[in-house]
C-alpha cells in the first residue's frame, strides 16, 4: 500500500529491479560469451599471429588477409553472415540446447548456455576478437583499437541481440516490455556495463603494472 505514495521514479525503479532475475541471467550470458570469445580469440589470434610471422609466403598472406578482412568489416555484418550460412547451405537446423537452471532468492533462473544461435554468436565473437588479438600480438601499438578489445569485448557481446540470444541487452528489452519503463532500464544496463568494463580495465592496468619491466 505504501507504493501509492512513493514518487514515480522510485516506483519505476522498484518495478524494474523486480526483474533482477532477468538481468542476472542476461549478465551471466554476457559474461559467458565474453569469456569464451576472449579465450577462443586468444587461441585463434595467437595462431594467426604465428602464421603471419613465421608461416610461409602463402600462409602469412592468408593470415594477413583474414585479419584485415575482419578488422575492416562490422561485427554485425559478420554475425549475419555466419547466421545465414547454414540456411544458405541448406544445412538443417537441429533444435538443440544446453543450459543451466538454478533457484536464487526464490526466483527461477534459467540460462541457455548453448544452442545454435549462441554457437553462431560465439563463433563470430571469437573470430572477430582473434583478429584484433592477433594485431595485439604483432605489437600494433599504433591503432588504439587493439588494446581496447580485451577490455571492451563485453560491449560487443551486445551484438548477439540481433539473432535472438538473451544476453543483458536483450533482457533489458524484455524488462522494458513488462514494465514500460524504458529510460531507467537502459540506464541501469548502461551502468552495469560501465562498472564491468571499468573493472576489467583497472584489472588490466594492475596486471600490466605488476608484470611490466622498467625500460621496456
Amino acid at each position, binding site marked *: 500500500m505504501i507504493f501509492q505514495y512513493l514518487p514515480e521514479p522510485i516506483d519505476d525503479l522498484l518495478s524494474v529491479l523486480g526483474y533482477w532475475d532477468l538481468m542476472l541471467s542476461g549478465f551471466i550470458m554476457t559474461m559467458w560469451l565474453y569469456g569464451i570469445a576472449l579465450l577462443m580469440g586468444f587461441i585463434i589470434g595467437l595462431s594467426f599471429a604465428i602464421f603471419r610471422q613465421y608461416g610461409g609466403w602463402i600462409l602469412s598472406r592468408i593470415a594477413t588477409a583474414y585479419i*584485415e*578482412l575482419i*578488422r*575492416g*568489416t*562490422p*561485427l*554485425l*555484418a*559478420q554475425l*549475419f*553472415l555466419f547466421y*545465414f*550460412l547454414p*540456411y*544458405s*547451405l*541448406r544445412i538443417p537446423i537441429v533444435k538443440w540446447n544446453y543450459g543451466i537452471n538454478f533457484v536464487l532468492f526464490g526466483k527461477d533462473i534459467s540460462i541457455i548456455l548453448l544452442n545454435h544461435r549462441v554457437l553462431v554468436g560465439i563463433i563470430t565473437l571469437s573470430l572477430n576478437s582473434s583478429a584484433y588479438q592477433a594485431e595485439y600480438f604483432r605489437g600494433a601499438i*599504433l*591503432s*588504439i*583499437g587493439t588494446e*581496447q578489445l580485451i577490455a*571492451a569485448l563485453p*560491449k*560487443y557481446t*551486445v*551484438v548477439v*541481440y*540481433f539473432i535472438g540470444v538473451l544476453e543483458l*541487452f536483450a533482457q*533489458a528489452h524484455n524488462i*522494458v516490455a513488462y514494465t514500460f519503463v*524504458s*529510460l531507467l532500464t*537502459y*540506464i541501469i*544496463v*548502461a551502468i552495469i*556495463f*560501465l*562498472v*564491468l*568494463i*571499468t573493472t576489467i580495465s583497472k584489472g588490466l592496468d594492475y596486471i600490466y603494472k605488476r608484470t611490466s619491466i622498467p625500460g621496456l
Partner: protein
Amino acid sequence: MKRCFLLITIILLIGIAIISLGIISYIFFPFLFNIFIYILVSGLPHTLLLTSIGLLGGFVLGISLALMRIYGSKELQWISSGYEKLFRGVPLLVLIYIFAFGIPGIFWFISPLDRSLAAVMLALALRSGAYQSQIFRGAILSVNLGQMEAARSLGMNQIQGFRHIVMPQALRLAIPSWSNEYAVVIKDTSFASGIGILELTKSAYRISVIYREIPELWTLSMVFLTIIYFLFTYPITRFFGERQTKKLKDLGMGGG
C-alpha cells in the same frame, strides 16, 4: 604534392577495377549485380550521413576534451577524464536505445521521422568524441615541448602558440589514428539498423526478407555487404595509416 598524385592514381585504379568488375558482373550475372547495386544504393546514403556527422561531432568534442585535459583546470580535467571513461564503457547499442526510446523529449525540435537518425548521430558523436579525445591528447603531447618554448620566446601567448605551432603538428600526427577512428565509426553505423534506419546493413538484411524463398541469397547479400564495407575501410586505413607515419617520420615530425 607527390602524395596527392599517388592517392589520386590509386583511387583511379580502384575505380577502374570496380567499374570493370561491375561491367563483367552486369553482363554475366545481371541478377546478382542488381542485388549488389540495390544494397549499395539504398544503404550508402544513410551510412555516409551517419558516419560524417558522427565523426564531425566527435572531432569537435574530441579536440575540446583534449584541450580541457591538457590545459584546463583540475575540474575540467576531471570532467574530461570522466567523460572518456563513461562513453568508452557503455555499448553503442545501449546508447542508441537510450536516445531513441529512453528520452522522449530530447529531439523535440526534429521531425519524428528523423528522430531515430538524430539519436544514432548523437550516440556516435558522443562515443567518437571519447576516443578522439584520447587521439588528440596523445598527438598534442607528442609534439616536442621545445616547439611551444620557441613560440613563446617569439612573443606568442599560449593560445597563439597552440593554434599556429602545436595544433598543426598535432593534427598531422593524429592522422593514422584518426583514419582508424573513421573505420570504427563507419562500422558502428551498422548498429543503426537496430532501430530501423535503412543503412547498408539493413539494406543487405532486407534482401533476406524480400527473397525469403531463396536462402542462398541471404548469405550472398551479407558477403556483398562485407565487401562494400571493406572497400570503404581498408584503402583508407591502409593509405593513411602506414604510409602517413612513414612520411611523417621522413619529415621529422614523428613525435620527437
